[in-house]
């Protein structure tokens, strides 16, 4: 079910909201959030609800066991075992086909006949996100950062919370624990206006900006072989803003929906295209993933401790795995490696280039990020190579129809991404005045018209 669909907006959400606020106790609300989470998820394919239930059960049981024991070796086992289960599930559904295909290709290169059977497995939507939810819960419980919950329904509501279920943000239990415990005392009126405003802001980003850009981006990049150098740049800039507004829009909607139910979901995007260096970019882009990767992988590998090369190695590993997390394709691995190199390069050179004005640094960072998106968007390495060739050599080709409108949209996207306030800046000190609610109503109305006009598309991050 998509947030930008009629069935969600006019059936699922009103029913979920009305029943939620009719229920009084926290446990009733936890149960209701769990049920609605499974309905939301099962609407796509009910079979995979079992998988989510299994992951929930394994992590909850491990959390309870961690609560009961202080024995170091037992605690370690209680952390490793459920994480292994979670990762095996993720590896099977997301990476099995990729690895067998890659092994076959590799054997081919060496002149061997591997012919391993390539499994065509359906990727359960949102599996990368809820797996990270459960893993972060287990690790935090092991480290003593959180006290595992005794309430199964509280934990299952956390895992299956529909607002963050399929495309994040990756909300760690510690960030939402307080709100989940106090959900029985949540204030309905307080959250409704700001929640609706966040929802409308997200609709603006997703339906009005990202989907409008997608109208041009998809056909242009679908026929990338024909593009001229200028057209290739316009298409990639379009994709750069489409991706940002698509995912940021989803995150804003998730925050708004959370607030409507008394749950504060943290910020996931902080105007990343304002960044003046790659390190800052990763503090502003998909913040929840960056934080998880930093806290559970980078720091576990040793982080900044030790000699410089040690830090560089940790950065590269983190970014490579971060790339692979996004999808089972070599393009994502290369994209991760590319960002790893950017981060290493930045840490190595930053002291020597302090004189570079901020504006220039921002522009350079932006261009480097756009180049990275080529790998992210490409369906295979040959597409990435051809697109990059088109962008950096004067290639003959065509500028498809609608270039003027597309360029205008790209400029609007650029202005919004760089200079307009993001969702959290806009809602800082929010007061539900009539003008703000009217603005939200206008956006909501226009977005509904576009959704009805078949222009609403699935969120790009659903595929991860």
């Amino acid at each position, binding site marked *: 079910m998509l947030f930008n669909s*009629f069935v969600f907006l006019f059936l699922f959400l009103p029913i979920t909201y009305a029943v939620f606020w009719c229920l009084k106790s926290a446990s009733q609300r936890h149960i209701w959030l769990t049920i609605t989470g499974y309905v939301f998820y099962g609407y796509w394919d009910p079979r995979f609800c079992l998988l989510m239930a299994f992951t929930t059960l394994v992590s909850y049981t491990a959390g309870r066991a961690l609560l009961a024991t202080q024995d170091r070796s037992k605690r370690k086992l209680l952390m490793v075992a459920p994480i292994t289960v979670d990762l095996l599930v993720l590896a099977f559904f997301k990476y099995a086909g990729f690895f067998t295909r890659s092994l076959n290709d590799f054997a081919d290169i060496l002149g061997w006949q591997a012919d391993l059977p390539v499994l065509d497995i359906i990727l359960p939507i949102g599996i990368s996100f809820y797996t990270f939810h459960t893993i972060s819960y287990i690790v935090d419980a092991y480290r003593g950062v959180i006290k595992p919950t005794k309430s199964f329904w509280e934990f299952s509501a956390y895992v299956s919370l529909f607002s963050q279920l399929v495309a994040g943000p990756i909300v760690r239990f510690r960030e939402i624990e307080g709100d989940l415990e106090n959900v029985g005392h949540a204030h309905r009126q307080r959250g409704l206006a700001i929640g609706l405003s966040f929802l409308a802001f997200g609709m603006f980003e997703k339906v009005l900006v990202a989907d409008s850009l997608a109208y041009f981006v998809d056909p242009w990049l679908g026929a990338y072989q024909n593009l001229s150098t200028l057209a290739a740049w316009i298409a990639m800039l379009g994709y750069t803003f489409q991706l940002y507004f698509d995912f940021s829009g989803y995150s804003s909607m998730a925050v708004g929906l959370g607030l409507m139910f008394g749950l504060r979901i943290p910020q996931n995007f902080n105007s990343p295209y304002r960044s003046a260096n790659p390190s800052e970019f990763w503090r502003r882009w998909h913040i929840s993933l960056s934080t998880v990767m930093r806290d559970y992988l980078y720091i576990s590998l040793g982080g900044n401790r030790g000699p410089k090369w040690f830090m560089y190695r940790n950065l590269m590993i983190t970014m490579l795995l971060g790339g692979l997390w996004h999808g089972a394709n070599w393009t994502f691995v290369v994209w991760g490696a590319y960002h790893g190199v950017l981060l290493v390069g930045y840490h190595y050179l930053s002291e020597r280039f302090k004189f570079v004005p901020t504006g220039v640094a921002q522009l350079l960072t932006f261009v480097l990020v756009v180049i990275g998106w080529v790998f992210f968007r490409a369906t295979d390495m040959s597409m990435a190579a051809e697109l990059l060739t088109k962008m950096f050599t004067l290639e003959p080709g065509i500028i498809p*129809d609608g270039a003027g409108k597309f360029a205008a949209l790209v400029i609007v996207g650029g202005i919004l991404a760089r200079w307009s306030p993001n969702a959290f800046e806009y809602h800082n000190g929010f007061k539900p005045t009539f003008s703000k609610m*009217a603005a939200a109503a206008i956006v909501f*109305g226009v977005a*509904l018209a*576009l959704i009805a006009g*078949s222009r609403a598309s699935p969120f790009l991050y659903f595929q991860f």
Partner: protein
Amino acid sequence: MSLEEDSKSDASQRVRLSTWFVLTVIVALACEVGARLDDLFFEGIPFSAAPTFEGLFIPGPNGVRLGRPNAQWKKVRLNSFGFRSPEIPKTPPAGCERWMFLGASETFGEPSVANTEYPAKLRSLLDLSSCTEIVNTAFPGLGPPFLPAYYRAAVAQYAPTKVFFYPSTHLYLGGLQGRKKPPTPPVTPNAAPIPVKPAISLAAIVNSSRVLERLHDSLHMPGFIQKRRLEKWIANAAANKPDDWRFAQVPDERLEFMLEDLRELIDAIRASGAEPILMTHAIRATYPPRAEDRSDLFAMRAYVPQASEEVLAEFEYIADDKLRELAAATNARLIDVARLMDGKRDRFIDLVHFSSQGHADVAQLIKNEMDKHAAAAR
């Protein structure tokens, strides 16, 4: 609670309700304005225009309707010759091919989405250097009985080199309008473009609400209600009809009508100097129908109430065989879409209309067949 507090709370309740009411009105107005701005920016449809499906047509000879030059409706934009295609010169540039596609709604494609129909997908599949123009001349409801007259009146004059036709064979189980036709006089091509008529009053704008039209397209009655309605409609259609009104078995004379019309079309295409290429008609169901095919076959009875689901499925199966025989007998090239697509449920959105992936598959099939032919010719 005191009386004063009561009245205060009543007042605040009234303010709250009025605020929600005003916000709802704003949402409704923004919906309509948004739909019109969207159409204006992406489709170039004037803000105040009231385009309709009927506005896509101008009357042609013998009850055949022709495309209105430059007409627009939803995501449909006809070119200056009245076809759902990019602009083309009257004759193809020297050394270039012009492939024109004839058919009904299956070929015309979804009106609320642009460039997903198989001719458009084929256009994007072809290499730029191939210099082949793809022109979609299909229109919804343009069944085979109309095709020869439509071809002569609207298509032949644009010098096609190849004409692909995808006949909606199932329509031969319907009312068969257009079969009894007098000889077709030559027709002067479409007159000057007629602009989309603008709405002139507020009432007209309300009646032609674009957002209501969009909602009508995107929201559907639940299946069980649609089924009940259709059952009632079929019962009404069958009322007071003789016993033999329903087809107890596949009606042979309808198959003969179809072959007759298509032979005439093949002759007309050849007479204009183009090569006819026949395509078989694919459906979502198999023959014999599977359990999951029943609802699609039943839904089609809205157009062919005389045929039961079994007769419809069998008719389609036999009709495709007849098309194959016709292609062999007339020495016309055949692209067997049915063989590739029949029964593939995810390639269709209903019994006969392709999904986006279905259109892509058909486009790829045509390209492969044409490439194969070109390679054999070399």
